[in-house]
Structures are given as C-alpha cells and as structure tokens.
C-alpha cells in the first residue's frame, strides 16, 4: 500500500506515515491533531469537514490523503495569523451566525472560497454556493448576512 509521509497544512510541513487511501479528515484530526474540520456524515453531504486544497473547498472526509500529499491545505486553524481573525470569522461572530458552532469551520472555509471567485455575491449566489453545507441549528440567514458582511470587510481591506 502506498504511504504518505508529509502533508502541507497551514503553511507548515507535517511528518506523517499513513496509508494513502486514508481520508484526509481522519489524518488531520487524529494524526495531526487539527480538529477544526469536523466529521458530520462521511459522505461529503454536510460540509462540516470542508478544508481548502489549493484554495478550493474540498470535503476532507471523502478525500484520500494520497491525492493531496503535495498540495497546500488550509484548515480553519490556519485561516488567520495566530491570535487574529479572518474578516469572515469576525463577520460570523458579529452576525451571531452560529449556535452550536459545529458547522462553522466548514461554513467559513467554503465562504472564503466563494469570495475568492465572487467577491460580491448576492444572497441567492451565496445560498447556491453554500447549499452543500448543513447547519442543523438553522442559522442559514445569519450565515448569509455574515458572508455579505465579510465580503464588504474584505473589499475594504483591499482598497
């Protein structure tokens, strides 16, 4: 069986020794101890495990670690410099866009990817892009307004 011995996560190289067919989620959580990505369904249906690979949102629960061994991976822990908050994290707090918070890291990372390709999305565009992410507490409305707010903050930061 092919092995994977190194992962690039949050700008840092992690030495691992795992079967290439193992799910990225499991490696991140159980081997690297980055637990921000969550297990929700194991079939890519809920988005709780979302991480960014090469800047694109990917379901880490159905991504084999062998497929991403040489690619930059960003988890929620690496989204903002240590101690700081990414504008979207701040926007989620400001909008109270969470209750239990279990979906938040997947929501925020998916939103980061959305704003990269569409810096000023409409509510409909947000809802369409985010539809694969489940929030069982039902804070969808607030997540939409947080993403709109985050977009504004990012735009201001750019100008």
């Amino acid at each position, binding site marked *: 069986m092919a092995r994977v011995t190194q992962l690039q996560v949050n700008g840092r190289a992690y030495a691992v020794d*795992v079967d290439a067919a193992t799910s990225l989620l499991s490696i991140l959580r159980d081997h690297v101890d980055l637990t*921000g990505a969550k297990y929700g*369904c194991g*079939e890519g249906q809920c988005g709780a495990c979302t991480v960014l690979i090469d800047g694109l949102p990917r379901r880490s629960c159905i991504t084999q670690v062998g497929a991403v061994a040489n690619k930059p991976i960003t988890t929620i822990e690496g989204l903002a410099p240590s101690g700081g908050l990414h504008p979207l994290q701040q926007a989620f707090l400001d909008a*109270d866009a969470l*209750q239990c*918070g279990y979906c938040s890291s997947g929501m925020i990372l998916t939103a980061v990817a959305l704003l990269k390709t569409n810096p000023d999305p409409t509510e409909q565009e947000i809802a369409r892009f985010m539809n694969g*992410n489940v929030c069982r507490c039902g804070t969808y409305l607030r997540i939409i307004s947080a993403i709109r707010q985050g977009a504004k903050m990012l735009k201001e930061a750019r100008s």
Partner: protein
Amino acid sequence: MNSTPVVSPYPEFEPERYEITSSPAHRFQPNRREFFKLLGGGIVVVCALNDTSAVQESGGGRRTFSESLPQEVSAWLHIGEEGAVTVYTGKVEVGQNTRTALTQAVAEELRVPSNLIRMVMGDTDLTPFDMGTFGSRSTPVMSPQLRRAAAAAREMLIDLATKHWNVERAGLVAAGGKIIDEARQRSAEYAELVKGQKVARTIAADQPLTPASGWKVMAQSLPKVNGRDFVTGRHRYTSDLKLPNMLYGKVLRPSAFGATLTSLDASEAKTMPGVTVIRDGDFVGVAAPSPELTARAVALLRAEWKSPPQSSGRQLFEDLKRNVVEGKGREGGFGHSVGSMDRIRAEATDQLQATYNVAYIAHTPLEPRAAVAEWKDDKLAVWTGTQRPFGVRSELAQVFRLPEDHVRVQVPDTGSGCGGKHTGEAAVEAARLARAAGRPVKLVWTREEEFTWAYFRPAGVIDVAGYLGHDGTITGWEFHNYNSGGAAIGTPYDIPNQHIQFHPAQSPLRQGSYRALAATANHFARESHMDDLARLVKMDPLEFRLKNLKDARLRSVFEAAAQKFGWGRARTSKGQGFGIAGGIEKGGHVATCAQVSVADAGKVQIVRVVTAFDCGAVVNPEHLRNQIEGATVMGIGGALFEAIAFEDGRILNGRFSSYRVPRFSDLPSIEVVLVDRQDQPSAGAGETPMVGLAPAVGNAVFDATGVRLRSLPMAPNGIKQQVASG
C-alpha cells in the same frame, strides 16, 4: 386572563416521558472545608432549592452555613481571591447559548463585567445535580437561581466593604466589579475585598432580584461568550478530545434492532497488533491505536445475528392505534374532560372529524454521539455530549455497578442536541472498551450509527373532532393523541366541552424526546383542524381563532404576527397561499404566518415566515431571534420532508444522502416579532417557536391549492404525489 377556568390536568412541565428521570442515589455534598479546598479561598454562595430552613433560621433568607450544605442545591457561585467569578451549574451548552444567557444573569446581579465570569457547566464532580438541559427550563428556573446567588454575593461584598473601610452600608454601591463608596470617592475591587476570606452562605428563594425594567446586562444582546473559540476551530467538542495513550473504539452493530449474537469469529482481528476485541453478551467492540486500524479490525469480525421479524413503516399508523398500552401513571395515558361531549355531539350545528399522522424523524445533531472514557482503578471519567450529564452518570454507575461518586461525567459544549442527546450510549460503549483495553478510549458514532442507534421523535396518530355552534363558536373539542406525546395536547381556545386524551402505544422504534416534544405534532393537528373549522363556517382563519380565544398574550402574538405579515392580503399569483397558526407551550406564546408557493408540479416552497413570540421578559434579543429563526428552519424539515423509513428492524434512509434536512435552498425569508413582556417572568425559548410552523405551512398550502395535508411530513415528494398515493 382566561375566563374559562379550565384547570389543566397536565403538569405545567412534562418531563421527557420516554426517559428515565429518577433522582440520583447520591447528591454532591462537600462540606465547607472541602469547598474551599476545591475552589480556593474567597466567597461562596450556594443556591438552595426549597430550603425553607434557611429562611426560618435567619428570618431574612440568608444565613452563614456551618459544615454541611443543604440537600437540594441547584448551583453555586465562587469569587476567588484574585477576583475571578466562577459559576457552577449542571446545565449544558448545546448551541442554545445558555452559557451566554446565564453569564448575563450573573453579571447583571453581581455588577461585574461579563468577561470576568466563567461558567463551569455539566461536570458531575464540580456542579450540583441537575435533571438535565431540556424542557426550556434553564431560563425560567436556573437563571433566577443564579441571579439570586449573584445578588447575595453582591450584598456580601458590600458587607465586606463596610468592614474594610469601617463604614455604614448606606452609600456603598456595587458597579463594574467594584464596591464604590461614593461619598468618600473611593472604591475597592472585589478581589481586594475577598482576599483572605473564607465566607460561605446559603441563600433561599426570596433573595430580591433586579426587576427587568432595571436590567443593564440582561435584555442586551451579549454575543456568544466563547464564540471566538468556535470560529477559530479552537473549541474542543467531545469528538475532538485526545488523551495520552488513547485508543479509538468502534462497536460491531447488530444486523437489526433486537438482534442477538449467535456466533462470533474474532480470531483474525485479535491477531492484529495493538487491537483489543471484546465480546460481552451481544456487545462486540474493538479498540485500537488508530481509527483506521479499528475499522480494519471490525471489518475482519465474522458475526452471525439472529433477529426477530419486525414491522415496517408502511403500516406504522395502523400499528400505533392497534397497539395502545393501557395503564395508569407514568407509563399510562392521561386525559381530561370538561362539559359534556355527548350532549354537544347531538346539538352541534356543524362538525368535522379528521385524522392526522406524524412520522418518526431523526434529530441528526451535526455532531454525532461521542464519548471519551478513562478508568483509573475503579473510578471512571467520561467526556460526552449529553443533555443529561447526571442521567448519564447514573447510567454508567448502573451498567458498571459502581457507586455514583466513582463516575465523573463532563460535557464539553456540544455540537447540538435537538432533544436527542438525553442518553449515554456512546459513554457506556467507550467505557466498556476502555475497561477491556486498560487505556482511555474515544468512540465517535458514524452518521449511520446516529441515524440508527439513537432514538427517534415519536411517530403518532391524532384524531380530532371539532363541533360548532351557529355563530362560529366552537362548542366541543375532542382530541386523541396516539403515541406521539402529551406536550401541548390541550387547547388554548375557550371551548366549554372537551375530551382530550393521550394514548401511549407500543412503538416499533426506539423513541424519545425531540425539541418541543409532541407540541409540534399536537399543534399541527389542532391548528390545521382550526383552519378547517373556520372554513366550515366561512370565517377568516385569524378571525375565527380570535373569536374563540380569550388568552390575552396569545391574542396579542396572533395580532402581532398578522400585522407584520400583512394578513388578509389577496393572492398575487397562482400557487400562492397564506396560513396562520399559533399556541402556548412551556410559557411561550407563539404565532406564525407562512406564505407558500406551490408549483404546478406540486413542489412546495416556503417563501416567507413571520413569527411573533412572547416569552416574557427578553434576556438576550439577538440570541432569542437566532433561536426563533433556527427553530423555524429546523421545523421546515419535519413539516415538509423529514421521515424515517424502516423495515424489519432496519433503518432504510439513515444517511444525509437519503434523509433530507433543511438546507440553504429551503430557506424562506424569516421575520421575527419579539413581544417583550418585561412584566412577565422569562420563559425558555429554544423549543416553542417551532410549533406553529408546520400548521401555518399546511394552512398556506390549503389556501393555495384546496388540498388539506394531514400527514407530517406534508410534502416529501411534492404534494400531488402524496395526494395520489394517500
């Protein structure tokens, strides 16, 4: 307010009847010395429940306690010598933001900034016994108790300041974490005052509280106190915990419910290095140093199961009515009658009877059940996401034949509960594996396990009959709920003749509480039926409700929702429909208006929802709105499309890919009207806001199409198909 004095035969608060709610065998009772050893010096205030002796002894509701604490303690509060405020409560945080609301309650009365308060929640070694976090009880019950403790602590600090400065009490005020001597323009921090102190006090129920009109911290929208930990991924849910030397556990699940293990060949799995396999009766589990190894070992187990033939979801509703459980007391049914239904049946001008069905649904908390268990000698420590830490402690003590004080259950803030995490399955499984392996074990349920081996919101059948007089007055009301439950089974309308009955039945699936319990089902049946009765007498549904309703608070939320919604508007497009529904439950008064759009193909889209809610004095407006919006979204699933399919002891749709939960695409516009009643005690708000949604939507679908949907979910595949098959 209600001029027809119908005495409710139901307790004001129905505990989850499906769960064990027995009192624990032991109560945590450290004495004074132990207390300070545990917490450090400073001052401690203990909230006594029903401690009448305290009142009698001191005559003033406060006393210095000696060596022992009262038997019934609900919470305690400690101000340490560094000024840190720590509050201990058995309540848990599952996303309802009670950690924030209770922090506000303490900050309000203690006059201390919220960020200096730490809440220790749901730790059976550190917090007093609590029955559980359910029934919308944290705000109406725990919050006032903590406020009393904080108010008492504030008064004790003022007492300490009088000694500190050798002055009279008059002129000393508490503010911003200090006692201020205004006349002499000096102040002392709480830390300064408690230094070197070891003062403990028990307070009784009459400690005066700041009235809602004077609230400065409560009634404000304090953001989630530890919100930052969640958006940064730093918070550790149970499933994120890691102990040194920890193994990963997994259970070999039976082939069907009720199956017994007839043979097990574990020889191959047992040869894998580091793998522990255990069989104990029908329980088979594996623990190994990595989740992958554990999964591989489980896959190598060869088991044969034998399961009894079991029923299927196809004849569920017939089964429930056929299998009614007779009996009295907790297990039996209950009901009440007023007036004479026999007379009314004969006299009524119009009558309408109908049957409503309610499917089993799954809670699907986004964080599935998980536990970490660690044994040290004969003492067991478990971390698990549960709404009943003390209940789970009892379960563990029972299963492992331990005294309760040998078991410690701790509940990290949990990835939602939805009423579905009252039990300790994962805790028991992890503890069994940890004992066998001699090392700590973490066990996280898969989504399929959560769908299959947790418990379901009860299915039910509800028969309703309404009887009307000439002028649209409801003269008689008959309501029979089979199996789904008794919450909100009564009617808030003023009806002189009533017969209302709950009939428990044998449930083919394991069932338990769900957010709002049976209030959702009972409101669906009652408020759908109310609409049909209104149409029978050709009255507007809102007008008909108000005609038969005296409760002022319910009337006012109906009116508030209708006004915001623009009730009475004419349809502007084909397929559009408007509906209204409401009711009273757990001290909350709710009314919901819904606008739907039904496409030609039968697809139902909820376009707009307006909910007006009165839960007394509002504690945190933004979090309350958040709860109401969230309850609305969660309610959409059960109203339109969620249903568990099962056959012969197996769940047929136990995955997110086959069980649909509400998503962004299902989201209507949601508007919330808060009816803030500062003159009323605060009621809980996590549950009741969802009960009006399903009937409001059903009534709107009827308005749009003339089709009455009497089964939850109402439109799993759009409505035409359902009408054709139903």
